[in-house]
């Protein structure tokens, strides 16, 4: 079993292709509020776990950083996240970039979705736009998207 073997299994998975690529010109990075959105199914322990076909999202507060991996797929290494949350959710690194002035600030709340979805229609039509609205209401400018 090698990582390439697992990746090769995804070769036949349909990927949504967009006819047009939306594009938002960002504010200068040193002024930007940055949030992380991950498909790693992270959640706080007290929050609802992800169900197998969960198309919703969970809000990840910046504190406490007690994130739990709720992903249903067995097809990735979890020990990297177990050792260091930044391997998947680089919140400490963003804090450091904000302290250096490289980015403007780090959002207080971030989002997690479940990446193991075969039908993305509910995310496209509902929870995706809802998540964007949630972030916009926080005045987020830039989103870093991380998979597992």
């Amino acid at each position, binding site marked *: *079993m*090698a*990582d*390439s*073997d*697992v*990746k*090769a*299994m*995804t070769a036949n*998975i349909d*990927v*949504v*292709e*967009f006819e047009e*690529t*939306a*594009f*938002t*010109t960002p504010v200068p*990075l040193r002024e*930007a509020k940055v949030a992380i*959105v991950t*498909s790693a199914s992270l959640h706080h322990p007290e929050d609802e776990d992800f169900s197998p076909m969960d198309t919703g999202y969970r809000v990840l507060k910046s504190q406490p950083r007690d994130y739990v*991996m*709720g992903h*249903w797929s*067995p*097809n*990735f*290494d*979890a*020990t*990297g*996240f*177990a*050792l*260091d949350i*930044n*391997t*998947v959710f*680089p919140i400490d*690194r963003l804090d*450091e970039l904000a302290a250096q002035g490289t980015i403007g600030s780090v959002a207080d709340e971030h989002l997690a979705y479940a*990446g193991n979805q075969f039908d*993305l229609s509910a*995310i496209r039509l509902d929870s*995706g*736009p809802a*998540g964007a*609205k949630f*972030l*916009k209401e926080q005045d*987020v*400018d*830039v*989103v*870093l*998207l991380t*998979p597992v």
Partner: protein
Amino acid sequence: MSTLAHIFEAEGLATIALGSIKSQIETAAPPRGLWCDFPLGRPLGVPSDSEFQHRVLGKALELLDSPEPIFAEYDVSIIDDGTEVMACPMPPRHDPDLHPAIDEANGIRPAYERAIAKYGNRVGAGRTVEADDITTAIDAFIRVADGIPWKEAGVPGIPARVSQDIRGYYETAALALSDHAPSAWAGTRWFLDHTEAGKVVMAARQAMADAGEMQPIWFYMAPGDR
């Protein structure tokens, strides 16, 4: 991730999508995509290496300078060749009257607790099966491996999720049993190929497949290439 990037960007957010699988991120073509040839589960590359993670982030943030959609490849690859296995000194057999997997799971409980105390319970037991009930779950899979239908064997939840809790229990314990940070998949290979519980999970999975159970019920008890 790339789908969300398209959606968010249409809503007025600037995005940067990291991707670990080149064909996927190329096809989905997010507005700003960075393919990092890192193992699945490690999109920032190396745990506990802030300099490495900062270099990846720096490259990602550079994409914001592009006046149009852009796809880039990170210039460092981390390749898992499928051979490294965590080296974990295991406790000796304690109770010969117990199934080896049950005895083993009991034996690594102190290591599991040490790892939880150090790192928190990020991927360990608790999705469906709490740590106190891991041996009960293993015992149920022993019965499945012996030919008892899984619904009659006392499996305490959906088999894939129960298996994930057992794997998480072991991989978390391994962090305290080993003296080095594991490379990607080294913990999984250790669990599946070098522990008694891993052998039980794989035997139960095979028994369910042989019995004609629906494929999604047993397939996701282990990585799909197994």
